[in-house]
């Protein structure tokens, strides 16, 4: 079924959902959000895209295979824990750096954000792998 209304709406919604998912990911440490929910949100965008168009179009929009996303996500999550080993702290100790930008309050950046990014990618990969293979049936 091709719905022009859905496709037109998807055009805007898709972009907004992806941007919102990034927003959720980045604010997660201080405000409601985080990698898991952000990943679901992004996957929701792609799911919407699949309903409006088809699986092939979604795969093209995604550019990478969901399996790759899972692998990269897990590698980032596990790798973020390894960084602390170099400083001699135990595995997965959070390491923080502080960024001072003009006009903004001090920004704390640390390995937990990297870890959350890994979670984000894994969740997108897992959700899309299930949804896309079901939709391909």
């Amino acid at each position, binding site marked *: 079924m091709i719905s022009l209304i859905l496709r037109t709406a998807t055009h805007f919604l898709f972009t907004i959902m992806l941007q919102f998912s990034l927003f959720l990911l980045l604010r997660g440490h201080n405000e409601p959000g985080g990698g898991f929910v952000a990943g679901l949100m992004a996957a929701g965008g792609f799911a919407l895209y699949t309903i409006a168009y088809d699986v092939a179009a979604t795969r093209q929009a995604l550019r990478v295979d969901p399996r790759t996303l899972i692998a990269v996500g897990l590698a980032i999550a596990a790798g973020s824990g390894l960084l602390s080993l170099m400083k001699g702290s135990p595995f*997965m100790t959070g390491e923080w750096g502080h960024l001072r930008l003009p006009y903004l309050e001090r920004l704390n950046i640390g390995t937990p954000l990297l870890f959350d990014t890994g979670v984000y990618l894994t969740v997108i990969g897992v959700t899309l792998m299930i949804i896309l293979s079901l939709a391909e049936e």
Partner: protein
Amino acid sequence: MSIILTVLSGFIFASAAPFVHRFIKEGIGWIMALLPISLLIYFLTYVPMVAAGEVTIVSYPWIPRLGVTLSFYLDGLSLLFSLLISGIGALVLIYAGSYLKEHPQLGRFNLFILMFMASMLGVVLAGNLLTLFVFWELTSLSSYLLIGFDHERETARSAALQALLVTGGGGLALLAGLVMIGQIGGSFEFSLLLQQGDRLRGDPLYVPIVLLVLLGAFTKSAQVPFHFWLPSAMEAPTPVSAYLHSATMVKAGIYLMARLTPILGGTDTWFYTVSIIGGATMLVTGISALYQNDMKRILAYSTASVLGMLTLLLGLGATATIETAIIYLFAHALYKGALFLVAGAVDHETGRRDIRALGGLRRAMPITAAAAGLAALSMAGIPPLFGYIGKEVLYEAAQKLSGIGSYVTGLLMLASLLLVAVAGMVGLRPFVIGKKGVTHPEAHEAPISLRLGPVVLAGSGLLFGLFPSLAGYWILSPAVAAVLRQPAPLHLSLWHGWNEIVLLSLATTAAGAGLYAARERLLPAAEALKGIARWGPARGYSATLNGMMRLAQAQTRLLQNGRLRIYLMIVATSAVGLAGYTLLHRDGFIGLGIESELRFYEVAIGGVILAAAFLATQTRSRLGAVTALGVVGYGVALIYILYGAPDLAMTQFLIETFMVILFILVFYHLPGLTPFSEWKRRLRDGLLSLAVGTLMFTLAYLASHARFHPPISRFFAETSVPMAHGRNIVNVILVDFRAFDTLGEITVLSVAAFGVYALLKLRLEGKR
């Protein structure tokens, strides 16, 4: 460079191997061999230090709370094995690069074999029992992967599984034994345990410990009755057989027994168990070798026979027998490695391994034939090869034994003359004698990479035979000293003048040659032996395995019959039954009472949830049921918001949305909603649902009301900002305080996704 790097570099190199293979195809074996060659050189630099009696110990904290350290220990025994592992490893990698040149998965092969090399180095360099155990299991795993390398063949797969189950089962017993040693000895470190020998030998748990540890060593070193996995493992590509299943891995059990001799040895239990099993293995597998025709299987059985001999020697436990075990182990690694590689080269050039179909290859493959001849002479114990020295010290040690000396000498002579016959079968017959009229027009000399291994190994046998003190002083004496815990200068020489030993040796060789000549006539008798062997332990293994399969099948048919509603019913009934029983039995209802404060909107949301749930059971449209369930989920999410858990609510909303999307995607494939079942079944389902609901409610209520400890949430609230720089406690817990849990969860999630993917794709494949 420290010792830990020698082990870790193997793993690092291994993980790079498939990528390297993608870009470089030509001469990959030589590149891969660079690592073991540099390791060999590195270990050689330790030789003078170790020969002077120094022991190197390095230790890193691993799980400090449990007192577990990752420690390494380099003494003479470790060094001897490390030299063999890295030296033969280099030759085998060069060999494999050519032997498996056409194989598309050569990169993967290199990964596995380097992984094995690193694990094996870990075993022999381990400085404590737990480090040793981890690497021990890794060698079993890499052996599994290597035996099953040609995984498209069913026999290779089952042989790999057999080896894994036998050695893995032994590994579990070993772990139990090692933990008990650690408990009693007060430490897992070798350096400390070496002082604890008397305490362990006097402990009431001494006998169980010895039996468990020996079970591990016997399965690994293919001792009777676990020897059957070794001949099956010949399914592996020949370089693997040469490396793992003759020169190194199967000697891990020997290594372990030698290593633990100062701690556990010297008692009657040890003496009888080890020497009887060793002697039995030596004879049973030695005789079995005689009636094989496949070159690799002959070599496998004779390897098991030698392993039995080494076990026997360690079990006898006298200074002279331990010296001999170490000397013979070295001699065996050299000649057997060479012979395996020769068998592979012959197979590679002629496509045959059956000795009945081979003959006269010396004309086509003169250099390989020369190497095979040297190795076979060493195996037969003929001067001036190192094998001769091995055999001579063997008889000398046996003669020195008080009381049982003559019996042991007799047994060893029997085993040795079997080895002489086997040497003729694999080293002489395919090249020199063979069947008349068998020609190999297609055969030609193997390339240099296939010749290098046999030539170097067989050549070393000659070199050390001519200059025995070279190996004796620098490598073997320190190894013996490490087992005996006292300096043990060896005085090896080729010629001691005419004495009884020389005569015994000559007699063995002559008798072995006679046996070889009479082999054809003895074969009918061997047929009878084969009939007995059919009832051997291999049958017990397959009966156990099949029994387990049948049990699993019966249980699966009963519990998982493919109907989802039965699954759900079983899960729900057992949950209600078990948890409910515990609650009633242990007076679990604490602090139950009705909460008085209920606000209007809470009641309203609760009502909506209940109404939607009821609708879901009553509607006759599937879409209606799905939507109703969605309303239930959204209602729950609203409750989360009311109680101040926006993160949870957000996730719940998204999950509910996905549930609806998934349902819609599979809708098309589902059968139409059948008419409702009869009232009896509905009553049963209704009661069960009610029971589950009640149980969950009670549990949730109890969990929030019965407090035994102060809640941990205060800790998180207080430390979230100062320690983890985040104000969202939920997220801080997920990505920082409990990040390791999260890592586990997303890993499980990924595994589940791959499971779904496999199920769907397999179904699609099946349809086509």
